[in-house]
């Protein structure tokens, strides 16, 4: 009774011709095309353009709701309330705001609330360099809230992907009833380039109850990796939504070891069961590569430039670009590592994902960290490739 529904819509917001626009604007348009009708947020650089545009666009739509909340804790709270009232919901923030959202993130995971968090990463920790780039939130979205959960997170490298991957984030949030991230960096959020805001996009809606509403189990399935149907407030389901451990109907079960175990495992298993569909990578020049660069976000643009330059020098170097960060591309990295001598992993943090890659790679993974608030240059990546090459 639980299958998610898929439909195509023609958002009034889209246009088939390429447009020259800002990454953050493309993410906003992607969200609207995916069916987002609720935005709650709190201003923070470098994400605010999303909020500014939402403030206009959502108010133009009859069923759109925009609210500026008193802080980011309130924003994610409102988001979750709105999702249960039936709206596709989103917020946008950056590191300091994301840190405040961690408790709400765990609540969304535990209550299986579909919602999208756009994080335009800046240089941290703390207030750091508010207007400069970083990728320091990669592990926080995965592990920042206490307990075990599995988010879905995409990493765009272009303005086009700010649009496309925001739609994907919504679709996976809905299909799996999970919080999903557009985990962008400031350089892509503030990039201006051409993108096509497609007219017909594939959209998914959360699985909805099919049979009698009194018999619905909104928080449990027969399968250990299933996604239960989600009633909305006001439909007569007498919902019991709680962040405490609960049985399939929602009754708190705070002493039962089996219910705790089954629930927590299902929260992750339902995401991993779709892992092969969620995880997307792109390969460049990898067929005969001896050394591979693995990169994501804006850094992958520098990495591709570095790889092309190496090829001109006759070095067999390739690139694996991660479009999905969570779940991690473990199989893809493992397979790659069986064919290359070394992996070079540049990222705008002190090696957050390189460490994860190392757990799955048979070859050396050489981290190329940079945390100076600036994008990593192709020259630096070439330098590291040259070192591992010799």
């Amino acid at each position, binding site marked *: 009774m639980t299958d998610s529904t898929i439909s195509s819509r023609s958002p009034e917001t889209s246009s088939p011709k390429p447009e020259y626009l800002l990454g953050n604007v493309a993410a906003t348009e992607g969200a609207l095309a995916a069916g987002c009708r*609720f935005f*709650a947020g709190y201003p923070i650089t470098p994400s605010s353009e999303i909020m500014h545009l939402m403030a206009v666009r959502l108010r133009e739509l009859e069923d759109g*709701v925009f*609210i500026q*909340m*008193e*802080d980011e*804790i*309130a*924003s994610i*709270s*409102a*988001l*979750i*309330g*709105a*999702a*249960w*009232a*039936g*709206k596709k*919901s989103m917020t946008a923030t950056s590191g300091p705001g994301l840190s405040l959202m961690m*408790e*709400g993130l765990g*609540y969304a995971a535990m209550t299986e609330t579909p919602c999208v968090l756009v994080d335009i990463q800046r240089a941290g920790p703390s207030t750091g360099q508010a207007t400069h780039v970083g990728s320091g939130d990669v592990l926080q979205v995965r592990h920042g809230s206490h307990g075990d959960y599995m988010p879905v997170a995409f990493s765009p490298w272009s303005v086009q992907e700010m649009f496309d991957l925001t739609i994907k984030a919504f679709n996976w949030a809905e299909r799996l009833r999970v919080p999903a991230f557009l985990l962008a960096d400031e350089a892509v959020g503030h990039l201006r380039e051409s993108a096509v805001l497609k007219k017909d996009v594939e959209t998914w809606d959360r699985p909805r109850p099919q049979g009698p509403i009194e018999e619905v189990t909104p928080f449990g399935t027969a399968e250990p990796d299933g996604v239960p149907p989600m009633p*909305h*407030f*006001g*439909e*007569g*389901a*007498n*919902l*019991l*939504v*709680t*962040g*405490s451990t609960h049985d399939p109907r*929602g*009754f*708190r079960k705070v002493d039962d070891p089996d219910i705790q175990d089954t629930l927590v495992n299902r929260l992750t298993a339902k995401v991993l069961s779709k892992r092969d569909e969620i995880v997307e990578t792109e390969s460049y020049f990898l067929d005969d590569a001896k050394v591979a660069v693995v990169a994501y976000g804006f850094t992958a643009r520098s990495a591709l430039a570095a790889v092309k330059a190496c090829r001109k020098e006759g070095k067999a170097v390739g690139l694996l670009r991660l479009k999905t960060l969570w779940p991690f591309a473990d199989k893809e990295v493992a397979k790659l590592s069986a064919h290359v001598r070394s992996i070079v992993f540049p990222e705008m943090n002190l090696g957050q994902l390189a460490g994860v890659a190392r757990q799955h790679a048979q070859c050396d993974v050489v981290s190329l960290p940079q945390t100076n608030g600036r994008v990593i240059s192709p020259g630096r990546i070439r330098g590291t490739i040259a070192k591992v090459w010799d």
Partner: protein
Amino acid sequence: MARALDKYLRKGLSGTTFCPGCGHGILLGSLLRAVDELGLDIHKTLFVSGIGCAAWIPSPHINADTLHTVHGRAVAYATGAKMANPELTTIVVSGDGDLASIGGNHLIHAARRGIDLTVICANNEIYGMTGGQTAPTTPIDAHTMTDPEGNQYRPFDLAALVLAAGADYVARWPVTRARALTESIKRAISTHGFSFVEALSPCPTQFGRRNQFDSIPALYDDLDAHCVERGTSEAAPATNGPRFEIGEFSRSDLFANGSAEQK
């Protein structure tokens, strides 16, 4: 609780988890009576709570949509749900620690916005669930787990605080005056805008025991004796201790002591 209200209780529950003598059970009764007398469509009513003993008043007891959130954030969750579906009668029920300490910012901002929410604060002047620590509502000199020698800091006057933040309807009653409390809850729900009802709800287990109330009736009698109803000739208590002005409040009361009301 009266049989007539049983229909609002969720099936399959074996009683409440409240301690004997807890005021929160009386508040649940008042709330359900208000729902009944208003003839609310319970399937279009949403109850939101945070974390604490008081947060268990609606969840799981009331057989309607309930959203049991995290500590302090109930009002923000309720704001999102109400804005997303304005047809939901949205009622927040939570504790003094939940709404006024960790959640104080959400409370005043919701009052400022005037979104159509009803917030009912079960004020027991302490953190009940976690073992009797000082709350922002604990009276001066009251003994708590974290102030064994007596609390030194002034408590919030919650009704005045929320009124000053812009609430459209504010009332305060002890659960001992259940009829008046029920009437105020009805008025709060019927008010189009932000309403706040502070229900003084004794906690015998964590507050009473530590403050030399050797019986549950003694605690209730003391609370009632320290309440003075507005606009009546009820005498102020002779004894020392907290004095609650009870009744309905309006914004003009805020400036009763001489200063002009802000325009």
